[in-house]
Each structure stands twice: as C-alpha cells, then as structure tokens.
C-alpha cells in the first residue's frame, strides 16, 4: 500500500519500521471442527455465552450440490479501528508496533460505546462471575493472542487449526506467509465499505456469509431463544 492511501494517522500497514500483524483465513480449508473456538475459550477462560472467536456456518445450494460454508470470525484488528475512536477514556487502544487493538481492563467504564461502534460484533461484556479470572463487567475481545505473539508464538486458534485454515503473521514483511497469501490470492475482508481496514483476510469466503443477506427476513429463532435466556439470567 502506498503512503498516499493511508487515510489516518493510526494506520500502520505499509509503515516502515513497524510490524503489522494480520490473519488470513482460507475458508476452503475450514472443516468446522470449532477447535479454534475451544482453544480460545481455554486460553482466556472465555465465559459461556460470549466468544472471542466463533465459527458460524450456512448451508447453501440445492440438493445434491449443497455446501456447508464456514466463516470463522474474530476481532479484525482494524487499521483504523472505530472502537478506539469511540472509547471516551482510551480504555481501547491500538499498539503501533504490531497493530494489535487491545483493552485496558482497569480503565474501562463499561459504557459499551466500543461495542456499539464495532461493525463485526467482536466485542462483548464480560459477565459478573467467572471461573478462574477476576476480570469482570468490562468489555472484552480477541487480542490476536498478544501475550503469545510477543513470545514468538502464534495465536491459540492458529496453533490449533487442524486444516491450517488460519495463518498469522506480519503483513508488513513481504516474505511472511500472510503477505504472500494476500498477494497471490483474491482475498475478502468483512464490510470493507466501513473504512475500518480490517486485518483479517478471507480466501474463498462466500458473500452469503460476509454480507447481511436476506436470511434476516427468516430470523434464527434459536439465537433469539438463547439471547433471551442469557439476558434473563442477567449475565450482562
């Protein structure tokens, strides 16, 4: 990306001297085993009912040519993150070196402006009670496994992905696998029209999953039942 295309001072993709981590998800390789979701839950003690990463699917086509399409989702660690702009107390911030969008838990007031501003539903409110962790009643999200990456490891979801559907690396390094995948394949990002410059790139994602789609006309009643049950117990 040329310097002229950088729209805001927060963007670090293509900026010399800094790393810009990104994830490439090749949905053609995803088998929907949900191991990434489980690994993430285990890594962070993510409570029931909320997710840092999740794998929705949709069955498309007509028998006998039906296809179950998965679209692993997580925080897109945007280069121009609306959540950082929306937070009144700078509890959400973006690291220049690495591009991680992270959270100061002790500063978050719980106004949920970041949740309202996120086009990807990547943020959630932590419930009042957690099993092993005392960080509660603040907004949380995927961190791209910052604590692992700074130790030279890849995120837990990437580590566990059985089909190597998830690839992680520095997109500012032209020799990295993510750079080469993005250069060689047609990739999609979620909701590019929002100008957030997401850094989760999909290979082979179907528009029936990346867009709102007409499925909203036929609402998923199970999700409504689960949402009602979750709210009834006043977890949030």
């Amino acid at each position, binding site marked *: 990306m040329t310097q002229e295309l950088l729209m805001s001072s927060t963007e670090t993709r293509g900026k010399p001297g800094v790393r810009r981590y990104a994830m490439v998800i090749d949905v053609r390789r995803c088998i929907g085993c949900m191991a990434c979701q489980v690994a993430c839950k285990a890594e962070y003690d993510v409570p029931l009912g909320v997710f840092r990463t999740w794998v929705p699917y949709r069955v498309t086509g007509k028998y006998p040519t039906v296809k179950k399409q998965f679209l692993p989702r997580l925080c897109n660690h945007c280069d121009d993150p609306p959540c950082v*702009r929306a937070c009144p107390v700078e509890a959400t911030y973006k690291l220049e070196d690495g591009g991680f969008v992270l959270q100061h838990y002790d*500063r978050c*007031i719980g106004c949920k402006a970041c949740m309202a501003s996120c086009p990807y*539903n990547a943020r959630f409110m932590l419930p009042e009670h957690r099993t092993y962790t005392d960080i509660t*009643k603040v907004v949380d999200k995927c961190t791209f496994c910052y604590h692992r990456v700074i130790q030279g490891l890849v995120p837990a979801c990437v580590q566990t992905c059985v089909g190597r559907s998830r690839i992680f690396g520095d997109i500012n390094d032209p020799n990295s696998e993510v750079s080469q995948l993005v250069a060689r394949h047609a990739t999609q990002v979620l909701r590019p029209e929002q100008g957030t410059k997401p850094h989760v790139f999909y290979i082979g994602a179907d528009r029936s999953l990346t867009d*709102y789609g007409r499925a909203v006309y036929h609402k*998923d009643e199970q999700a409504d039942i689960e*949402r009602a049950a979750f709210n009834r117990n006043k977890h949030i």
Partner: protein
Amino acid sequence: MNEYTVFHTMAWPSAYAIYFFVIGISSALFFFSALSWFREDYRPLRENAFYASFVLLAVGGLLLIGDLSQPGRFLNILNPAYLNFQSPLAWGGLNLISFGLVAVLYFFMMRKGDEVNGKRLAIIGSLLALGLPIYTGFDLTVHQHRPVWNTPLMPVLFVGLSLVSGAAVASFLTKGSEAANSAMRRMMLWSGGAVGAMLISLLGTTAYGGVGAELTFMFLTSGTLGLIFIGLGIIAGTAVPIVLLLAPLGRQQVGMMTASVLILVGGMALRYSILYGGQILQTYY
C-alpha cells in the same frame, strides 16, 4: 439446521432511550427558563421549568452512571490523562457536568433576582443545554455502520425532539398563563413540524439505503417496533398532536394538554425505536 451463528447482544439497552428522553426535556426546560430573562411571555416558566430541568438532569445523570457496567469508574471520564476527545461520549460527559455546574449557579442568581448575572448564566447555560441533545445525536451518528443512526440529521433531530418534548412538559408548568401557554403551543407546533419533516427524510434515506438500511427500514416499519415507531412515534406522537394544536380545540387547555401527553408518548417512542432500530440488524451479523 441450515444456519448457525452465535447471538449478539445490543450494546445500548432501553435505559439509553430513557436517558435521551429525560436529558432532552431537561435541556429544553432550562432553555425556556433562560428565555424568561429576555421574553415576558416565558416569565411564568422561569422557576418551575428550571426546577423540573434540574431534577431531570439529576435523573438523567444517575441513569447514565447506573447503566455503566462499572458505575464507580464514571470519574474516569473526568480524568484528563484518560480523556479521548475523538469520542462524543467524552464531550458529552464534560458537557453534562458543566451544564450541571452552571445550573447550580443559575439557581442562586435566580433566587437572588440578579438580572445581570442571571442573564449571563442563562445564555451560557442555554448553549450548554443545546449541547446535550446535540451530543446525544452525535453518540449515534458517529457509528458509521449503523443504518438510521449514521446520518447528519441525528443531532438536529434530537434538538427538535428535545424542544418539542420540553415544550410538552413546560405546558403543564405555565401556571395557567395565557401568554406562556400560547408560546408553548407555538413551540410544540414548530418543533413538532420540524421533527415530522426530519422523520420523513429519515424514513426516505433509510428505505433507499443499502442492504443494511433497507433491512433496518423493514424492522422499523413492521412488527412491534413498527407499531412503536410508526404508530406511537410518528402518527400518535407527532402527526395527531400537530393536527390537534392546529384545530380550534388546540387553543384550549384540554386540547393542549392532550397534545402534550401525546407528544411525550411519541417522543419516548421515537427515541426508543431509533435507538433499537439501529441495533437490531447487527445482532444477526
């Protein structure tokens, strides 16, 4: 099952709609009280409107703090080391607090009958009061992916809603003054008309927007939310009161009171449906 996704909760629940409602009324009531220093027809409203404004300001502040998941940390918003001026919430917090402080000073000047300082504080307080509906509108506008919210109309619409709802409450506080009643009737008519025009514009841009806007339009105009937005908000809460106020009955006390009640019901319904309308679709993404 052909589809699976996890459910997502709405970021801002109905407490925010109530907050928008009370803070809008509070700012308009202060404005009417302030106008009484410059216009004789508003004079009966000076004390009553101010007291009601102050009570609603306190209620609104408590609602806002109570809705935080960490209410004890609301002081973070006053910490200069933390403040993020890119966020309308930061401006809003400062606006609310400075408005509260000016309102306290205004109270003392009003009690003292200090014409010079009273007028000064009335002007400063009115500007700060104007900032409250504007910032609440910006709270919604800045979220670029939210249909209905992300329009430059929103801060102006909230000012209009503030004036019309505030005038509806003020019409109960005029102590039977003919002049004040007439002023409030005019205020309800003009601001109600402006709100009506903006709602038509909002519906138009939403209906002819992209996929998200189109689906949001569907939610806003059908089912329960449709009943609240179209039925209570637009028809019962905006169109009917305007017609009533224009009719001969609207010049009488009973007609004006009826219109005021309808406007208040409509004002709450509009804020609720606009708040929810912008969030429903996202919960399915």
